[in-house]
C-alpha cells in the first residue's frame, strides 16, 4: 500500500495490468449500477417535469422535504424505523446464531436436514400471504386466538386496536421469516472451523457448552460482526412489505408501527410526486450513511480487524 503512494497510480497500473483488467468488469458494473444512479439524488431538490427530464427540471429548494417534517411525524417515523430495525436485527441474528449452533451439533443427518428445511421454509413465503395469516390469527370476530378465547369463555381481545401489542407481533414474524435464512450463513461459518480443535477440546474434557463458549462463538465472531454491520446499513429502510402487509391501512396502530417507507407510500400513493419520494429516499440514505460511519468507527476503535473499511 505504501508503495503505491510512492510510485503513483500509473506505475501501479503498469505493474499489475492483468489484475486491473480482471477487476475492470466489476469496477465498471459498480460505477454504472451504483454510482451513476446517485446523480438521480438531485431529484429530491427538483420540481420534476416529464417533458424537461431530471436535469432540466426547475429547482425546488427544500420544499420536497417539508411533507416529512411539517406535521411532526418525521421524528416519530424515524424513531420507529430505527427501533424496529434494531429490535429485528438483534432478535433475528441472535436466534440465527443459536439455531446454527444447535443444527451443527446435531449429528443425525436426517434430523438435521429436516429441521433445517423447516426453519428455512418461512423465507420463501411472501409477506402478502403472511399478512393473510396474521389477519386470520388476530382479527376480532373470526380470528384463531379470539375463537379460542371465546370457546373458553373469555372476552375477545381487540388486537387491531392495541398498538402496544404490535411491536412484538411484528418482531416475532420477522424472526420467524428471517432466522432460517440468516442461520445458513452461520452454519457455513461454523462448518469452517477446524474439527481438530473441537476434538482436542473434547479429549481434554471440555463439555459441549464449554466448546461452544470458547471455540464456536469466538470463531464466528468476525462473521457476526460483518453481518451486523451490513444490517446496520439497512437500518433506515423498513421492510416495507412486512409492515404494509401486516398492518395495512389500520390507522389506530400507526403511532406504534409506522415506518418511513409505509408513511411515504401512504401519503403519496394517491397523489404521487417523484420529487417528494426522492426526498424521502435521500433523507434515509443520508441518515444511513451517518449511522454506518459511526458504527464502523466504533467497531474500529474496539477491534480494527473487524471494521468494514
Amino acid at each position: 500500500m505504501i508503495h503505491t503512494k510512492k510510485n503513483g497510480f500509473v506505475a501501479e497500473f503498469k505493474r499489475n495490468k492483468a489484475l486491473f483488467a480482471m477487476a475492470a468488469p466489476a469496477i465498471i458494473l459498480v460505477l454504472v449500477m451504483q454510482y451513476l444512479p446517485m446523480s438521480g439524488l438531485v431529484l429530491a431538490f427538483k420540481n420534476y417535469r416529464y417533458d424537461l427530464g431530471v436535469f432540466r427540471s426547475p429547482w425546488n429548494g427544500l420544499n420536497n422535504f417539508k411533507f416529512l417534517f411539517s406535521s411532526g411525524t418525521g421524528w416519530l417515523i424515524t424513531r420507529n424505523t430505527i427501533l424496529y430495525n434494531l429490535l429485528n436485527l438483534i432478535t433475528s441474528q441472535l436466534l440465527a446464531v443459536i439455531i446454527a449452533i444447535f443444527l451443527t451439533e446435531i449429528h443425525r443427518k436426517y434430523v438435521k436436514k429436516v429441521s433445517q428445511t423447516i426453519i428455512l421454509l418461512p423465507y420463501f413465503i411472501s409477506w402478502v400471504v403472511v399478512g393473510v395469516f396474521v389477519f386470520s390469527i388476530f382479527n376480532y370476530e373470526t380470528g384463531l386466538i379470539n375463537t379460542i378465547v371465546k370457546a373458553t369463555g373469555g372476552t375477545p381481545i381487540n388486537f387491531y386496536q392495541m398498538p402496544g401489542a404490535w411491536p412484538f407481533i411484528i418482531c416475532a414474524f420477522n424472526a420467524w421469516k428471517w432466522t432460517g435464512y440468516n442461520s445458513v450463513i452461520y452454519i457455513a461459518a461454523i462448518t469452517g472451523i477446524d474439527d481438530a480443535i473441537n476434538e482436542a477440546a473434547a479429549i481434554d474434557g471440555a463439555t459441549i457448552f464449554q466448546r461452544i463458549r470458547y471455540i464456536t462463538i469466538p470463531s464466528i465472531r468476525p462473521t457476526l460482526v460483518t453481518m451486523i454491520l451490513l444490517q446496520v446499513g439497512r437500518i433506515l429502510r423498513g421492510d416495507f412489505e412486512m409492515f404494509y402487509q401486516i398492518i395495512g391501512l389500520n390507522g389506530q396502530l400507526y403511532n406504534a408501527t409506522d415506518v418511513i417507507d409505509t408513511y411515504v407510500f401512504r401519503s403519496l400513493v394517491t397523489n404521487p410526486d417523484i420529487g417528494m419520494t426522492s426526498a424521502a429516499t435521500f433523507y434515509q440514505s443520508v441518515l444511513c450513511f451517518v449511522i454506518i460511519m459511526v458504527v464502523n468507527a466504533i467497531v474500529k476503535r474496539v477491534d480494527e480487524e473487524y471494521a468494514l473499511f
Partner: protein
Amino acid sequence: MRKGLKRFLAMASAAAMLTGTFGTAVHAADAVDTSEEVELVMYVVSDRPAGQDIVDANMNEYFKNKLNCTLKINWIGWAEYANKYPMLYSSGEQFDMAYCATWLNFANLARRGAFKDLSELLPTYAPDNYAMQSDSALAQATIDGALYAVPTLLPTYITYGPIYRGDIADEAGIEGQLDTWEKIEAYGDFIKANHPELEVIDLYQGNVELSLQWERFQGNFEIDSGNRYIFYDPSEEHPTVFPVYDDPTFGDFVDMCARWSSKGFWSMSALSDTDSTKTQNGKAALRFHNIDTWSNLCVIHPEWDFRYAPMTKDIAHLPYTQDCLVIPTTAKNPERALALWNLLTTDQEAYDNFFYGILGTTYELNDEGQFTILDPDLYQTNACWAVRTMELNRNQAGVPEYYDTVRHEWEDQIQEGVGTERFTGFVFDTTNVTTEIANCQNVRQQYGWPLELGYVDKEKGLEDYKTQMKNAGIDRIVEEAQRQLDEYLAGLEG
C-alpha cells in the same frame, strides 16, 4: 379570471378549427397520410389476458385494411401500475397512446408535461370523435390552455349508493328501495338476527367510504376524487369549501356509525382486512358503490337479486377524464394514433374487435346485441375503457333493465350548468399544496377512518381528527380549494 379567458380562447379557436374542418369536409382517413405502414404502441393498465395475441391478430387485420397500421397493446399489471405508470413518461420510452384517468393522476401528469397538446391534432385527425365531444368534456381535458386528452364518450355518473341483496330485502319485508339510512339500519338489524353469517356492510382496508356516501346523500360533493374529506355544496350560488367534520350533520353521522359498529354491522378489524370480494362471494350483504359495480354483481349472481338504490341527492356526470386517452410527448405517430382512435370510437366493427375480441371465440352476442364473455380466462374485455361510447358500447347479457332506465332518468334530470353538473369542469390543481395534501391524506387514514368506523370515542376522536388535520395544514388546502373554486365560477360567469 385570466385562466377562464384563456380557456375560452382555447375553446373558441378549437371551435373555429372544427367548423373549418367540417367546412371542407375532410375525413380522418383523408387527413392522415397512410402511405407508410406503422405499428402503433398503446399502454393500458390491467393484467394481460391470455388470449391477447389472437385478439391482436384479429383486430390488426381490420386496422391494416382501414388505416394501414397495426396496434400493439402493452399491459401494466395491477400489482405494479402505481410505480410503473408514471415511469412511462419519465423513462423517455417511445409509444403512441395510453389509457389515462383521473385516478391515474391525469391532471398532475399533464401539468408536469407528460402529454402532447391535442388542441389542433384532435379536430384534424379525429374529427368525428371531436364532433361528439361535449363542451364540458373538452374543458375538463384542457389544462392551462392546452387539450391534453381525448375524453371518453361514455358518460358516467357520480351516483353512489347501496348495492344490496334483493332476496334478503324481500325476506325482511322492506318496501321500495333501500334508499334511506333508516331502511339500511332495518335491513342490517334483520340480517344480524336472521343471517348472522353475513357481514352487513362490506368494508375492507382502503374502502372506507361511509362519509362520502353521507355527504353525497345530502347533495354535497368532494373537491377532488383523491381528497374525499373536503366538500362543498354545489347547490349554493357561491359554495363554501369545508372539511368533512365541519359539516353540521357530521356529529349525527359519527353517532350513527358508532351505533352500527356496536351492532356489529362491520368487523372490528375491517381496516386490516384485504378481502375486496366479500359481497361478490356472499360474505357481506351490502356495499356502497356505483351502478357499474352493481351491474357486474347482477351478472355474476343473478340468484341473489342484487338491487341498487342511488342515494345521491344531486346527480351529475363524473368528469369525462375519468377515462381518457392521452398521447405522450414522445409519440412518433400522433396523427395515425388519433385516426385510429377516431375509427375505434365511430366504427362498430373496429370497436367490437378492439373491445370484445373475436366473435364466437372470446364473446358472443344475443338477439338484443348484448354480449357474453365466453371464456373469462382467455379474454374478457379490453382495458382501454376510454374507448367506450354511448352508441357502440354493449351491455353484458344479464344486466337488469333498471340499468338502462335509471341512467336515462339521470340523463334527463341532469341540466347543463346546474347544481353539481356546473362543477364537472372543475379540476383541483394541487401543485401549491402537495405537502399539506400528503400529510392530510395520512391523517385521514390515521384518525378519520377509525372515527368513521366507530372504533374510537366520539368526543375524543373528533377532537383528535380536527387537531391533527389542522397540524397537517388542512386550512391551507381549504383556502387554496376555495380560491380555485371561486376562480372557476368567475370564469364561468365571465
